């Protein structure tokens, strides 16, 4: 088993080290064409329902700490340590407080653990469409997410027939709303399928794959337990220990596509939650000061562009959806 993974990793390394060659293949051209159509569709949908697109900040004194096991990129910024955004969550909240409904096409970097290299789902460098809605609930955010996905799928089906054919991909038509399962229900479902998951952590990759494989249309997992997510996912006041958050899961084994939540915006709650990652709240000084001044409640999510492309195109791995991809631990151009 281990041997197999290692050979797979060696093959992957060989391929990635010559990634400039992919761009000349018909397969890659079709993939990128579909990606562009999907992005265009998502942009026009969001603009049609009142969102404003902003240029994303990509560096800052702090970034999102809530990324499972991945390290941030730190660099010297005139004598101080700054970070490259692992997600623009903190800036999203700032932007939302002034403009209401906003989104970024946000480039992010996460130095993922090395065992993610063979997952087919992780990139070190990727882009997410990251949006935030003032005074919204996570149900509002999920409704935007499902419409957004359908807009992208329908446009791709209409405009990229030749490319889909070349990739051998047939896309069904879905109509929202998508099904919603609570975290507890998913654990139960997994248990019935012979997979035990420890309560309190995010669904592990193999389990997520299994559940995604069982489903034949996209669905949401909602209400994760506290501890499984970053400090900015809001805890339900009536159900202590349960977060008002969600993941959008693609069917056919493609797994998680988007992740979102209602935000914790109260200063004192955020401070207590920050302790969970063992951090000194002092590190987030600007953010906490902003929260102390007060910002509106909000909800939002980020949808990974490469993962969406992988799903739309039916690709084996997410790195096939990116020019010169970077995968954990692989030194490639």
């Amino acid at each position, binding site marked *: 088993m*281990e041997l197999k993974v290692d050979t797979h990793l060696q093959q992957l390394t060989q391929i990635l080290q010559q990634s400039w060659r992919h761009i000349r293949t018909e397969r890659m051209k079709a993939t990128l064409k579909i990606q562009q159509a999907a992005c265009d569709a998502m942009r026009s949908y969001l603009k049609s329902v009142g969102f404003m697109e902003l240029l994303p900040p990509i560096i800052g004194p702090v970034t999102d700490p809530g990324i*499972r096991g991945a390290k*941030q990129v730190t660099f010297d910024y005139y004598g101080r340590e700054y970070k490259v955004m692992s997600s623009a969550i903190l800036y999203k909240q700032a932007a939302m407080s002034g403009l209401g409904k906003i989104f970024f096409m946000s480039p992010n970097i996460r130095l993922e653990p090395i*065992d993610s290299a063979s997952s087919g789902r992780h990139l070190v460098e990727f882009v997410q469409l990251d949006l935030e809605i003032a005074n919204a609930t996570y149900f509002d955010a999920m409704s935007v997410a499902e419409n957004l996905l359908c807009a992208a799928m329908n446009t791709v089906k209409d405009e990229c027939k030749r490319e889909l054919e070349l990739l051998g991909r047939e896309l069904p038509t879905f109509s929202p709303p998508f099904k919603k399962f609570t975290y507890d229900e998913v654990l139960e479902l997994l248990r019935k399928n012979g997979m035990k998951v420890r309560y309190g952590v995010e669904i592990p990759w193999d389990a997520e794959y299994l559940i995604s494989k069982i489903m034949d249309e996209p669905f949401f997992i909602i209400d994760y337990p506290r*501890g*499984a997510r970053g400090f900015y996912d809001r805890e339900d006041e009536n159900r202590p220990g349960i977060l008002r958050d969600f993941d959008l899961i693609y069917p056919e084994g493609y797994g998680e596509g988007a992740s979102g939540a209602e935000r914790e915006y109260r200063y004192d709650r955020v401070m207590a939650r920050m*302790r969970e*990652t063992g951090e000194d709240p002092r590190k987030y000084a600007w953010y906490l000061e902003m929260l102390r001044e007060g910002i509106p409640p909000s909800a939002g999510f980020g949808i990974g562009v490469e993962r969406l492309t992988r799903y739309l195109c039916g690709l084996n791995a997410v790195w096939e959806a990116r020019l010169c991809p970077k995968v*954990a*631990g692989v030194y490639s151009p």
Partner: protein
Amino acid sequence: MQVSRVTLRLFLSLHRLYSIFGDLHQIWRAYPFREIIDRARRGVEAIYPADVLKPSIMTLKGADIYSRAKQFATLDELLLLPPAFTPLRLKKMSELLREPLFSDVDLRHKIGGFNAAMPVMAASMGSVHVANKISLEVARGAAKLGIPMGVGENVATTWGYSRRVKANQPCFKERVMTYLEGLEEGYGGVAIQQSVEDAYNELWNRVYSDPDIEPYLKKGMIGFEIKIGQGSKPGLGGEARLTKEDAERLRDKYHFSEDPREVSRGVIERHSAPGTYVPEILRSMVRMMRNNYPRCRVWVKLGPFRDLPDVLNTLLDEGVDAVWIDGKEGGTGMSPYASMRHLGLPLVAALCSVSEFLKSRGRLTSILASGRLFDGGHLVKCLCLGLDGVAFGRPLAVAAWAGGARGVENYLRTVEVEAKMLVSALGKYSINDLSPEDLGCLDRDIAERLGVRYVYS
């Protein structure tokens, strides 16, 4: 006649002098003049053990805890009580087809998910320079014996992650890799602490994505350790004394009572926060670790807090791999006198809570003890109480200063042999057979709480 009168007079004046000095001495001893004068002279610096010693014997700092604090019960209150009838020895004999010897005792044990050749751990020593300086010798010795090792807080932040920031001080990764590469296949594991300041530099994430550490992650030999307090200073954060030069380099990372650049002294105290916990935060923290580092063991180091049973319950509900309890006698190296004297439960008192806890919930996780433990007897007594092992800190540091890696190895071998002798004396050959029946206590109340016999009953 003349002579004897002179002698008598001399004797009388000597006696008068003696009583004057004697009275003075008594007054001197009856009131802590020395301590107050020391405070008057040295100011705030005097609240810590003096720094006049050479580094090689600075490992002795705080060693006078028993004489400074009012005497409290220690593991010496307990005795191991061998029986004459030894059915388990008979069983062992039929297995070996000969009379068993003490060398037939099997000390191998699983601690916190790691395989240990004996149930001892090299305690997580941190960045304090006497400890860091001998850390590679400790790492080599611990690896040689096949016991798990901890790496304390602030090492990476103070001495560098993979490159030395100071030529004579090993960096974090040297400590970890020296240990891991020195291990015999199938044994060992390393538990890594992360202070608030290390978290700022994302130490755990860095370890988790380090290609050199990856093979050991795969084998399940890496653990991350939450530190909630330290033996002799529960409720206080880390205290260290740094040279002015080191302090200036680290001034953005730590809290210094004064700006190191504006201090003229050669040595400056560094403080770090104790960390804030409520059950919900601790629970979520463990989940966060399970979530973010699924391939790591979760270890917790606990100071001797009065709500030990509550903390243990919370940790057990979340299913941590190991809990290590440091009694008041532990970690005295850089503790203020006031905390050594006044703060926290003695180890024996903490063990009373633990044994009651084990009775009610069973052995669900590895529990270790530390705090002035240094020989095979201490180890065996803890095992009899249902613990999974002990952690040695200062003994390994002293052994390393005395004889390098070889010294650490020699020292650990003595503990190993002693433990085997004592276990075999109890007529047992596997540490899983040890139980409170093997112990007696010199104090009636402690005996009752520990669930062992009172020796005089």
